[in-house]
Structure formats: C-alpha cells, structure tokens
C-alpha cells in the first residue's frame, strides 16, 4: 500500500512538473488558433475560434508543404542513412580495436563535435563547388553528416564500451567475422541509443536554417525551416498567425517520429543480453 501510494505521488508530481514545463507549448498551441491581431494584442488569452484552423491551412498552402516536406525529408533521410550507419561502424572500430591509430582517431572524431562550421561557410562552398555539389541535396546532406556524425560516433562508442566483451569473444570463437559480430550482436544492443541519435540528428536537420540559407537555392529546394522563417518578416512585417500555423505543420513529423521511436526505449535490452 505504501509503495502504491508513493507511486501515485511520483506520478502526480511528474505530471505537475510536465505541466509547468509545457506552459510555453500551451502558448504556442493557443496562438496557432488566433488571428495575427489577436496574437499581438493578447498573446496569453484563449482563442475565440474565429479563425478555426485556417492558420494551419493557409500555412499549408503558403509553405508549399508537399515540396518543402519532401525536400527536408530527403535531406534528413540521407543524413540519417549515411550518418547513423557510418558512425556506428566507425564507433565500433574505435571502441573495440585497442591499437594506437584507432585511439588517435577517437580523439580526432571527438574534436569534430563542437567545431563551429558557421564561420567556415565560405571555404565550405568553395569545396562543394569543386565537387559540383553546391545547390544539391546530396551536397548539403554530406555537410550535415559531417556536422552530426562526430557526436554520433561519440555516443555510440560510449555505449559500445559498456557492452561486455565476452559476448563478442564468444562469437569470434565460433569463427564469426568482425562485420558479422557487429550486425548480429552489437546492433541489436544499441537500439535505444540509435533511436536517440536518430531523433537528435533529425531535429538538428529539421530546424536548421543556416545551411539551407547559404547552400541551397530556396526556389529549387525549399526546406521546412526556411519556409517557416519566411513568416517571420523584417521590421514587424511578420504574419504571426501564419507563423504559429506553420509551426504546427513543422512539429507534426517530429512528433510522429518521436512516438514511433518510443518503443525502442525498452527496458532490459542490454541487461537481458548480459544475463543470457
């Protein structure tokens, strides 16, 4: 009984905490149902439902949502496909092979985590031009991959190091190759981490505005972030109703992704394997 009571207390406490954290979200939500004048005049008031969902539908049209979704999703998928898989492989190598070159590479990757690419934009464009990759989806995806993968490598190798070696050694004994061992034993164990990395990478690419601004022609490749920021005009020309409507549209895929990856946060994957 005491334990159950405690459990409810924890639950209620967490819900209240979440509610406080969500106040700004609530403001976003109510404002996406208001007209521009209402938003500016009374940002904290409840909507009168005079505009209904027209903000969202108008934003849908203005953002050319099919085109901008497919542009951003193409980039995201390329980044995740390259970034996650290649980072995993590299992480496996640096976390498992105990030799100097691999240890050095670990620190090289590590140094890439925080370098601010923003200030190296101009040299970057020259490089992209050399490879004929400027204003292409592949080009920007490769740049994103370069930006996000050091962190992915770091995360993967950190978690891979906690996986006991006995598991793989047994496999090696059975004559399994490194590649085989990686796919059969390691990959299933790092699923929760992979889900985490995918979400982080997705979010970075989804919200980033700087790279598409300077690397892509927004007429050819309009990304969701650029389309959204266009509603935030200069010198007070912003149409806030469109902006808040647009946010709902930009948030939707992220929420779907998050919910669908939830099931990989399952308890006991690593622990179960260790026991087995």
């Amino acid at each position, binding site marked *: 009984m005491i334990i159950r009571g405690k459990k409810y207390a924890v639950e209620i406490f967490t819900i209240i905490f979440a509610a406080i954290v969500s106040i700004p979200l609530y403001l976003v939500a109510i404002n996406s149902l208001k007209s521009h004048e209402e938003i500016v005049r009374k940002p904290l008031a409840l909507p009168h439902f005079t505009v209904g969902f027209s903000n969202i539908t108008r934003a849908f049209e203005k953002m050319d949502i*099919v085109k901008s979704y497919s542009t951003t999703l193409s980039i995201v998928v390329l980044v995740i*496909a390259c970034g996650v898989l290649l980072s995993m492989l590299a992480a496996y190598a640096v976390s498992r092979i105990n030799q100097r070159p691999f240890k050095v590479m670990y620190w090289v990757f590590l140094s890439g985590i925080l370098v601010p690419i923003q200030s190296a*934009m101009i040299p970057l464009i020259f490089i992209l031009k050399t490879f004929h990759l400027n204003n292409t989806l592949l080009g920007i995806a490769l740049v994103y991959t370069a930006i996000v993968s050091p962190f992915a490598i770091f995360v993967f190798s950190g978690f891979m190091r906690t996986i006991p070696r006995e598991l793989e050694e047994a496999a090696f004994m059975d004559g399994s190759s490194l590649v085989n061992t990686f796919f059969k034993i390691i990959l299933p164990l790092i699923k929760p981490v992979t889900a985490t990395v995918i979400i982080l990478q997705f979010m970075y690419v989804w919200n980033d505005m700087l790279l598409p*601004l300077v690397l892509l022609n927004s007429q050819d490749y309009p990304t969701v972030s650029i389309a959204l920021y*266009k509603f935030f005009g200069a010198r*007070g020309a912003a149409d806030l109703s469109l902006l808040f409507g647009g946010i709902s549209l930009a948030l939707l895929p992220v929420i779907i992704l998050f919910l669908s990856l939830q099931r990989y946060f399952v308890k006991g994957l690593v622990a179960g394997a260790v026991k087995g």
Partner: protein
Amino acid sequence: MKMKSLVSMVIMPMVITCLLAACGSKENANTSTTAASSAPSSAASAAPTTETPVLKGEVNVLIGESLLGGIHEELVTQFESEYPDIKIKVEALPDGGIFDALRTKISTAEMPDLYEINIGHVTTGLADESGYLYDLKDMEAMGNYLDSVKGASIYNGKIVDFSLGSGVLGLDYDKKALAELGYTEPFKTWDEMIEAGMKLKEQGKDLLVYSSKWETAISNIFHWTFGHKAIVDPEFKEAYLSNSIDWTKEGYRDVLVEGFERFKELNQFVRVGSFTNEVEVARQSFTNGESLTLIGGSWEAGSIHKLNPDLDLGFMNLPYADENENPVIFVPEDGLAINAKSENLEATKFFANWLFSKETYAKIQKAKGSMSALKGVGDLDPAYVDVPNWLATDNVISFGNTGPVPGPTWIALGNAAQKYTFDDKLDESIDQFIKEYDKTKTK
C-alpha cells in the same frame, strides 16, 4: 528479427521520402511542362500586338520575402505571361537571412542577376568592390524616381538600386493622448518633451517605446545628435557622411557627451523592453496606449491602423534642436540592384524597367503601404502630410538604414549608450564606442 525491424526503421522512411520526393518532382515536372506548353500559345497571341525586343533567358532574383510586399509571385506570373521568352526565377528568403545569403554569394561569386541591397549595409561595399553594382542612372525606370530618393541611392558615384520606398525617421504619436496631456501641437523643444515624459510617468505611462532589435532605432537619438552637428558644422558633416570622423578633434567628443547624456535623459521615460524587444511588440505598446510615442518612420501607418483603427495617428520629428537646426533624417528603403556582370544583362534590365514602371510599382507600393519613392504614385497617409515640407528644407540628412556608420558599429553605439544608463560610467562608454568606430571607419 530485431535486426530486421531496426533496418526497416531506417529503410521505411527512406522509401516514403523517395516516393514523396518523386511526387514532388513529378509535380514540378507537370507544372513546368504546363508552363512550357502554355507559353508558346500566349507568345503567339502576344507577339503580334506588342513590340517586344527579342530577349531571351532566365533572370535570377534574390530578395527578402517582404521586399516586394509579398506579391512577387503574382508579378512574375504577370510578367511571364506578357513576355514568355524571359523566365524569372525568384529566390525569396526570410528577411532576416537576406544579407547573410548575399554576403556569401558575393564571396563565392554566385551572384544572381537582380538582388536586394541596402545602401548602408556592408554588403553593398563588397558588391561594389567585386564589380557587381550596375549604374542605373540611364535606365528608363529611374526617370520615374523622386530626386530625393535618387540622391540617397548613390554609392561610389553610381545610382545603385531601385529603392522600394522612402521615408523619414520620427515619432509616431497619438493625437488624442497628446491633447489630453495638454499639448495642442507636437513638441517643439527637447525640454517640452522631457516635461511631458515626467507628467506621463506620474500617470504610470511611458513617453516613448521602440525596438532595439531594429538596428536603426537602437541608438535612436544619435541620428539627431550627429545630424544636428552636421547641420551646424560642414566639416563634421563631411566626416560623418563619409564615416571618417576623427573623434580626437576639438569639440567632437563633446558631441558624444551630449548624445550620451540626452540618450540617458530620454530613456528614463522609455517603456521597459525597448532595449531588447521586437518591432511588433513596441508597435503594440504604442497602439495600446501604454506609450505616447513610438520611434518609427513614415512608412508604417498601414500596420499601425491595422492594429488600432481608432487611433488618431500623428507623426513628428524628434525635437532635438531648434527647428531651424533640427535635422530631418531621410532613409531610403532597401532596393534592387542589377548585377553588372550578369550574363543576361539586357533581359535583367528589361525586367527591372518593367518592375519599376509606374503601373507595376503602384501595385507593390499598395501591397507594402509605404511612402512612395516614385513621382506621382500612391497616396500619402494623413499622418504624413507634413513630411514633404520637411524634405524641402535644407536640414535633410540622408543615408540608408543605420547611416554612414556600419550596422555593427551603430549597434555598438546603442549598447554603449545603454550601458551608460545602467552604470553611469560616461567616459568608459564613450571610449568603448570610439574604439568600435575606429575599427570600421573609412581610412
């Protein structure tokens, strides 16, 4: 099994996206073929009636989303149906990112044919240095422009852009509220304005509000401080407008001292939030009646009326000095420049002449609701009726945006002045500004 689901987790979205992308591109293909197929027919019908020079090609345009009042798509459709041989490709960026993109494009030699510039922005100098600014003085459409706007569009001896509008900086005010406070006409002197500020403070209201996010407003009164000095001292005027003031010269530091003191005095009566907020928020405080005046310009009557249709809007110059010495701060808006190195120069010029013809410009001006830059085009808001008279005086100081002082330095001035209001260290703040100024001044 588990492996498989992980793989499917990666593969599935990929497939979906490819499908989506395929749909997207198919849709593009469709629209472009329809455009292509409809083009010849309209060309056939248009060709005999209009005497268009045979110009072909694609004109690339780079603008901020709001530069053409958001109607660029309609304009392009109209133009392309009239002149199907010229294709217009407009890249409209978020307004906040336009100069970042332009900056990068100049450095990487990826310049579009027609692009947004601001005469006072650093990118204009870079574009000039790289030979991207075409002299527009002989262009047909330039003939429509007001001389004052033309004069303010000169960079390095060339007329470099088709400005989208023009206006003067000043204070928007609520006529009714001013009358209730006991003033029958706009403030004539600085002291009168400060006195009003005190009265308002007793009522729990503020004298003025502005947005420091808008870099023109962050150092607000210094436009008038420098402008006033420029009117009384031609030598200073020349140094100021060419961004080469030597602050060690006798009396020049006193100008700064005066500016900092005045800034502090005025900003006692400012609405808290002005140092950091957005233009929208400042404008809202004004139209709600929380503040008597708003630092703005003669281009925003449209949006103010929209926020509060009942407001009886007036517009006054900041009473910095006596009327005969008080500067009128004239600011041309951003405009479009032609790339002198364009491969499609003739087609670009043709499109620009069309875009800034009286008919087309009138549409843009209506969509933007700003003060017109062309002779005899558009209506003047009642709040601004006096403005043309101000412009007829000898006290006009004109430049783009933040003025002859580059943006970052102007922001540094605002920050130094704000610092003085918090910590009272006058000399330190002034030295801080002079250091920044010397870094970016013309040598």
